[in-house]
Every structure is written in structure tokens, then in C-alpha cells.
């Protein structure tokens, strides 16, 4: 026998379920649209040359963005060198030892840093690196990206370490394992999956930044020889080519966007496979 209350609860359940499905679709639509649009407009400009050749001068057709692909990887790599050690150690500090006033201040400042517009970070990098060096460089670009990565890595590292049950810390300490080894060799590996997710989010964010690179890495139509020279990046090329009047450049901009998306995807999958849990 179905009472009125049961009917009411069941219909409420159905409505909520439908809302969940609708929200999921709403969230997926932009993703699919972006992906479809990028593929349909960029695929035509994708060929072997795109991955192996330098950009051609204005007026000549063909060429590729090989230097920009390498440049983006270089800049993100430099960003990781700065952002990951600082971010991860700060996250460890906040999760394991940050239960005091100092921890609260650091946590708040990290959130503030997370909210700083990326172009401001670019200007800061310009002031502290480019001006003293008197020229744009990959170092300056990597520095700006590293700063952007720090708060993302810090907060995810902290959150993920907090999800590790206290019982593991107690078990390790009770075995006579020193605190620092407990944290580094037992708690950190337990939270590794989530921390990797945070790192990949930060990498994706850094790889997709344009604004902070305009002041720092600038751009380069040729191969960079050293890291203290201006360096090309996919995002700045997408920006430059995308607003150009040339149709083949615009197509190459779309292709660049497509390559950037797949680059990050591949990187995420590779890192996931390399760090997958043994059990």
C-alpha cells in the first residue's frame, strides 16, 4: 500500500535525481562544445610540419609551432621546479604542523595568493626578474608560472594529507618511527593520488596561462638557445595568431589550442600511470 507520504518522498527523489542529471549535462555541454569547436577548426592545420617546423615569416604558408610546443613544456617544467617543492612542503607544513597561529596566517596568505590575477603575477615577475636582467627570458616566465602553481599545490597537498586517518600517524609513531619519516615515507605516499591530482591541476593552469608570459617569456619565432632568452609558448602564439588577419595563422592558432589540450591530457595520463598505487 502506498501512502501519500511515500508518494511524496518518491516524487521528491525522482525530481532531485532529474536535477542531478540535468546539472551534469549542463556541466558537460561547454566541455563538449569547446572540444568539438577546437577539433573542427584546428584539425585541418595539424600535420607533421606543425610538430617539427618553426613558424614561417608573414606571407609564407606552412611551417609549424615546434618551438612553441617545446617552449610551453620548458616553461611549465621551470614552473614545476619552483612551484612544486614550495607548494608541497608548505602543504605538508599546514597539514601536519599548521594547527597554530602561524599556520592560520600562512593558510590565509596562500588563499590570497590564489586569488591574485595572473597578470599581476606577470608584472611582479617582470619587476623582480626581467628588469634586473634587462631582457625577457624563459626563467622569468617559469618564475611567474611557478608562483601561480604554489597556492594550488599547497592547498591540495594540505587537503589530501588531512584525509589520511590519524590512526596511520599513530601507528607509525608507535613503532618508533621519527615524526619526519612518518610524514614523508608513510603519510605522504598514502595521500599521493590526491596530491598528484592537485599537481596536475596546477600544471594545467600554468600551461594555459598567457597573461603572465607576455611580460616575462615574451615570445620567440625561433628556437631559444638558452633559458635566459625569450621563449615561445603555445598560449602566446594562440593569442598572437588568433587575432591576426591571416587565415592560415588563425587555423594554426586553433591547432595550437588542440595540441595544448592533448599535451595536458597526455601528461596527466602519463603521470597517473607512473604514480598509480601498487594495490
Amino acid at each position: 500500500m502506498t501512502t501519500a507520504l511515500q508518494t511524496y518522498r518518491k516524487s521528491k527523489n525522482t525530481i532531485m535525481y532529474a536535477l542531478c542529471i540535468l546539472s551534469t549535462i549542463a556541466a558537460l555541454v561547454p566541455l563538449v562544445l569547446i572540444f568539438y569547436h577546437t577539433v573542427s577548426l584546428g584539425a585541418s592545420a595539424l600535420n607533421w610540419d606543425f610538430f617539427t617546423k618553426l613558424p614561417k615569416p608573414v606571407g609564407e604558408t606552412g611551417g609549424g609551432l615546434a618551438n612553441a610546443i617545446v617552449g610551453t613544456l620548458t616553461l611549465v617544467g621551470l614552473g614545476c621546479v619552483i612551484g612544486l617543492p614550495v607548494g608541497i612542503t608548505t602543504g605538508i607544513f599546514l597539514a601536519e604542523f599548521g594547527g597554530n597561529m602561524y599556520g592560520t596566517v600562512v593558510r590565509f596568505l596562500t588563499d590570497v595568493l590564489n586569488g591574485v590575477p595572473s597578470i599581476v603575477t606577470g608584472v611582479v615577475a617582470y619587476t623582480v626578474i626581467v628588469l634586473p636582467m634587462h631582457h625577457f627570458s624563459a626563467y622569468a616566465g617559469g618564475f611567474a608560472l611557478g608562483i601561480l602553481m604554489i597556492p594550488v599545490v599547497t592547498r591540495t597537498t594540505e587537503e589530501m594529507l588531512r584525509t589520511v586517518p590519524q590512526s596511520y600517524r599513530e601507528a607509525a609513531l608507535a613503532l618508533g618511527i621519527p615524526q619526519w619519516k612518518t610524514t614523508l615515507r608513510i603519510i605522504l605516499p598514502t595521500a599521493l593520488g590526491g596530491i598528484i591530482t592537485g599537481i596536475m591541476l596546477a600544471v594545467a593552469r600554468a600551461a594555459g596561462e598567457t597573461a603572465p608570459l607576455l611580460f616575462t617569456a615574451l615570445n620567440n619565432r625561433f628556437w631559444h638557445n638558452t633559458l635566459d632568452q625569450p621563449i615561445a609558448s603555445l598560449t602566446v602564439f594562440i593569442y598572437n595568431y588568433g587575432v591576426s588577419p591571416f587565415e592560415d595563422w588563425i587555423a594554426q592558432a586553433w591547432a595550437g589550442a588542440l595540441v595544448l589540450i592533448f599535451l595536458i591530457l597526455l601528461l596527466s595520463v602519463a603521470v597517473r600511470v607512473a604514480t598509480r598505487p601498487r594495490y
Partner: protein
Amino acid sequence: MMTIVDTNSPGTAAASRSITPRAIKIAADSLSCYFGSVHALKNVSLSVAEKSVLAIIGPSGCGKSTFLRSINRMHELAVDSRITGTLRLDGEDIYRMDAVALRKRVGMVFQKANPFPTMSIFDNVIVGLKMNGLRNKKDLSEIVEWSLRRAALWDEVKDSLSKSGVSLSGGQQQRLCIARTLAVNPEVILMDEPASALDPLSTAKIEELIHELKQQYTIIIVTHNMQQAARVSDQTAFFYMGELIELDDTTRIFTTPARKQTENYITGRFG
């Protein structure tokens, strides 16, 4: 302060009081423990003879876990904890020792089995030694086998040492945790309700194990199960509201307790 003597044969307990007692392994003198403004342990004095089993019983929140954790200084994980009085291991002041060195001598088994999820069974057993620098593969294998045999788990896992520690059943996980504790070769083993999350069969195995282990180790076990306390221990301490109410031979506590509160608790009239 009460002196604890060998009471393996209950019939001679009274007689053995007069003969030379075993060496005292752990001695608490006016031990109090505070967490912030909470006075969790009040002026507890007791001693435990080596190679004996002390059971601590009492209602929830009576301070028995706090007492246990003060012995290997795990209470210090709470930042606002504070201790007064003294606690000695072989006559040496525990609070003047290095906490890491102390915990190698005083192992602990927790209520909920907590093998490390990122490690194999083998690595779980050996983690305490490995993290403290032991590298020799042959030594490690020998210690793993020895520890698992002592924890009565070897026959069940010897062919799957590289499997995840959390793939085992609850009872096996708890014996794995005991093996992990034994691998460090402690002198004292603290057990915080080690069987309360286990089925009767696994519980019986753990209790059997305690009988085996007391040949070599001093064991202090906190339990909510009074039959368990009666089965495994030589001495039983009854804690209530942070105070040690009574400590005596287990048979005496469960047959003729000296204090009314103890009798009420063990007969189920409160708590």
C-alpha cells in the same frame, strides 16, 4: 603503591605475595594527565611486573586509554596535554627519555587494525625496522617470518607476502599489526581494546596469542570485555573517572573485589 607478583597459578596467589616478586617493568607514581583543562588521569600509582599481563577495565572515559597512551607518550600528540608525577620503565624516567627510542621499547596495538595501505604484508611487518635503517634483505626476510610466526599469521600469509596488507580479513589485519609491533622487538606491548572490532574466533586467536607473548613480553591490555580481562590477565586494574579504584590479582578482582565500585562494575550494575 601495590606490588604485583606472579599470579600464573591463582591458587597460590596469596602465598606468592610473600615470596620475591618479579622485577618491576613499569611503575607509575602519582601520575596525572591533563588535556587542556580536562583532568583525564588522577594521581595514579601502580606497577607492572615484567612478563605479566595487566588488564585495565572501566567504563568509557575513565582514563584507561589515557593511561595506556601515557606509557608510550602517544598522549603528546594532543598539543595541550600535560603530565605530572612519574612513570618509569625499568626504573628509568619515561619522560626524560627520547620519545622515539621509548616507542621502540614500548610497542602498541590499536583498537582498529591499521596496516599501512600503501604497503605489502611484508613491508607492513618490517616498516618499523626499515624506516630506522635496517637494509639487509636476508635479515629483513628472517624477521618478517619470525614476527609473523609469533603473531600466528605466518601459515595464512606466507604465500602472499607481496599482497596488500589491507587485503586481509579484520582479524588477520590485527595480527599483522601485532607482527609489525613484534618486529621492532619491544619489551612492553600496549594493547588498546585489540579485539573489540573482531569476531569471536579472531578474538580467541588474539587472546591465545597474548598467552604466548607474555612468556617474553610485558603486556598491558585495555578492554571493555570483562570475560576477556579474566581470561588473559594476571592482574586487573579498575579505573573510574580518571582514578585507579582497585588493582589486584585478576581472580581476586572478579571473585572478591575489595571495593564496592569494582563489584558494581563487574556485576554490571553500572558502567
